[in-house]
C-alpha cells in the first residue's frame, strides 16, 4: 500500500530523512513513531507529494508517486496535525465543498453519516471558526473519510481531543480498518498507537530504527523475563533465598506480591512454581510482565538502538 525505497530529504545540507525504507501492507494499521524532529512530518509531506524527496522512491497503492497524479490522491484521506479550515463556512458547507472537489456520489447522505459518526450532527450549521479544537479535529476526520479513501494518513489524529472524543475517533479508526481501509498513523500518544496498531516503525534523526509488529519489537528489546506472582500469604524476607536460585537474576518481594526477573535461556516457570510450593506458598496468579510500547520507544530512541536485522540494515545502506 505504501512503500518507500531509500527515501531521503535534505534541507540546506541537513538530512531530515535518511534513506528510509517503509512497507505498509494493505489492511494494516501502521504506527509511525519518533521523537520531535525525527523526520515524521517531513516523511508524511513527501508521501503526500507536497515536498519532493532529495532522492529515493515512493510507491502508493502500487504506483510510483507523482504529485500530478490526482487519481492516486483521490484514494487517500488525510488528517494533519494542525487543522486548517475555511472558517467562514459551516461544517455542512465545508464538507459539501470537498464532496464536490472529490466528486463524491450521493454526497448529502455521506455527509449525514459522517457527521453522525464523529458526533457533529447537531453542530453542522455552525461556522467552523466557532468550533473548538476537538470539534475541528473531528471535522477533519469527516473530511478525510468523505471520499471513501483506500488509505488514511493520520498525523496526530487525537492530539486535541478529550478522552470521550479519543475513544470515539479510536472506534472510528478501528471500524474503518475493519471495512478494509489501510491506516497510517503518526502519533506521540504511544498508548493510543499501542491500542490501535498492528505494526509500527520507529524513526530517530531521520533514520529507521525499527519496523515490525509490536510484539516482535518488545521481544527483541527484552533480554530478561519478569514474572509477576501473587501468593496466598506474606512472602517478605525471602529475597536472599530467591536470589540464590540459579535462574533468578533479581527478586522483589512485597506482601503477597513478587516480581521475579528470570534468565531467558529457557522457561523457568515450573521450577519457580515448585520452589514456591516447597516453601509452602500457594500460587494464586502468575503472569509475564510485558514491556510497554512507551518503554520500548524510549529504549530505542534514547539509545538509538537499531532493531533492523543485518539484511534490513544492508538494504537501508544500499
Amino acid at each position, binding site marked *: 500500500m505504501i512503500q518507500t525505497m531509500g527515501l531521503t530529504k535534505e534541507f540546506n545540507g541537513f538530512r531530515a530523512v535518511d534513506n528510509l525504507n517503509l512497507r505498509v501492507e494493505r489492511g494494516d494499521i501502521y504506527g509511525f513513531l519518533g521523537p520531535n524532529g525525527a523526520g515524521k512530518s517531513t516523511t508524511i509531506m513527501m508521501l503526500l507529494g507536497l515536498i519532493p524527496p532529495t532522492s529515493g522512491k515512493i510507491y502508493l497503492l502500487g504506483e510510483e508517486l507523482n504529485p500530478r497524479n*490526482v487519481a492516486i490522491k483521490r484514494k487517500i484521506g488525510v488528517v494533519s496535525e494542525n487543522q486548517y479550515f475555511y472558517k467562514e463556512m459551516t461544517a455542512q458547507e465545508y464538507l459539501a*465543498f470537498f464532496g464536490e*472537489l472529490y*466528486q463524491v456520489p450521493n454526497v448529502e447522505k455521506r455527509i449525514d453519516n459522517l457527521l453522525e459518526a464523529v458526533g457533529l450532527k447537531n453542530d453542522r450549521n455552525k461556522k467552523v471558526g466557532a468550533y473548538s479544537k476537538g470539534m475541528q479535529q473531528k471535522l477533519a476526520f469527516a473530511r478525510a473519510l468523505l471520499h471513501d479513501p483506500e488509505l488514511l494518513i493520520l498525523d496526530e489524529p487525537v492530539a486535541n481531543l478529550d478522552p470521550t472524543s479519543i475513544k470515539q475517533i479510536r472506534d472510528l479508526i478501528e471500524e474503518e480498518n475493519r471495512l478494509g481501509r489501510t491506516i497510517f498513523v503518526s502519533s506521540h500518544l504511544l498508548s493510543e498507537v499501542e491500542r490501535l496498531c498492528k505494526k509500527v516503525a520507529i524513526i530517530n534523526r531521520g533514520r529507521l530504527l525499527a519496523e515490525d509488529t509490536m510484539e516482535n519489537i518488545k521481544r527483541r528489546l527484552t533480554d530478561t523475563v519478569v514474572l509477576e506472582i501473587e501468593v496466598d500469604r506474606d512472602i517478605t524476607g525471602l529475597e536472599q533465598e530467591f536470589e540464590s536460585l540459579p535462574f533468578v537474576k533479581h527478586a522483589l518481594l512485597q506482601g503477597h506480591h513478587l516480581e521475579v526477573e528470570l534468565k531467558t535461556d529457557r522457561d523457568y516457570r515450573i521450577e519457580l512454581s515448585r520452589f514456591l510450593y516447597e516453601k509452602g506458598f500457594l500460587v494464586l496468579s502468575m503472569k509475564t510482565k510485558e514491556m510497554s510500547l512507551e518503554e520500548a520507544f524510549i529504549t530505542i530512541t534514547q539509545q538509538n538502538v537499531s532493531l533492523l536485522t543485518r539484511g534490513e540494515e544492508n538494504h537501508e545502506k544500499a
Partner: protein
Amino acid sequence: MGRSRVLRTLFKRDFLYTLYSFGYYGALFASFLVSSFILKNFLDATREEDILVSAFPLNYPLYLTLIIISLYLVIVSAISISREREQGTLEVLFYGPVTSSSFLWSKYLKDLSLGILALGFTALYFYIVSALTNLGFTGGLVRALIMGVFLISCVVSFGLFISSLTGRIRNSIITLIAVLGAFLAIQFVYNMLLGIEKESLSPSMLYLRQATAYVFHAINWVSPFAYLSRGLDSVVLENWTLYLTHALYCVIYSLVFVFLSIYAMGKKGVKA
C-alpha cells in the same frame, strides 16, 4: 472532466467568498465616487466657460475608475495564494485532487470574472451618468470598457505571480508595493533625465539616462499598468490595428504570467 470540475468548484467558492465581502463593493464605490467628483468639476467648468470641446468627455473618469478597480484587483490577486498558504488551507486542498495548475487557473478566472463584473457595473454607472448629463456614451467608451477586460487580465496575472512567490499576506503586499514603487521610481527618474538637455549632462549622467531608458522600456513590457495606459491610448487614437495588437499583447502577457505563477507555485510549495 475531473480537472475542470475541480477548477469550477474552486472558482465557485472563491468567487462567492469575494462577492460577499465588503472590499469589492468598497473599491467600486470608491472608483465611482472619484469619477463623480471629476465629472462634477468637469461639468462645473463647462457651465462657467459655457463651452465643451472633447471627443471623449467620459474617458478620463473611466480611466480613473479602471485604475482604482485595477489597484483593488492587483491587491486581491497578490494575496490570494499567500493567504491560503498562510492559513494552511492550500495544504489541505493539495491533499486531494487540486494541482498548482488547477488552483492557479481557478484564481485567475475568479479575479478576471470579478473584474468583468466590475466593468459591467462601470458600464451601467457611465450609462446613467451619460443619460443624466448628456455626455455621450460613445463607441470609444464601449471600446475602452472592452479593452478593460484585457487590461484587468494583465493586472490579475501579475498579482498572482507576486502571490505565488510569497508565503504570507504581509510579504505579498510589501513585495507588490516595492515592485510597483520601483516601476514608478524608474519612470520618474527617466522622465526627469529626459527633461534635461543632452548638452548639459555629464558623460556619466548620459550613460545613466541611456541605462534608465533601457530599464524603462523593459518595464513597459512587465508592468501591467503600462498596458493599461497604452491600451486606453489606442482607444483614444481610434486605431483598430493598435487596439487589436494591444489586446493580443495583453493575452500573451497574461498567459506568460499565469504559467510563470504555476511554475513558481510548484517550486515554492504549499507551506508559508
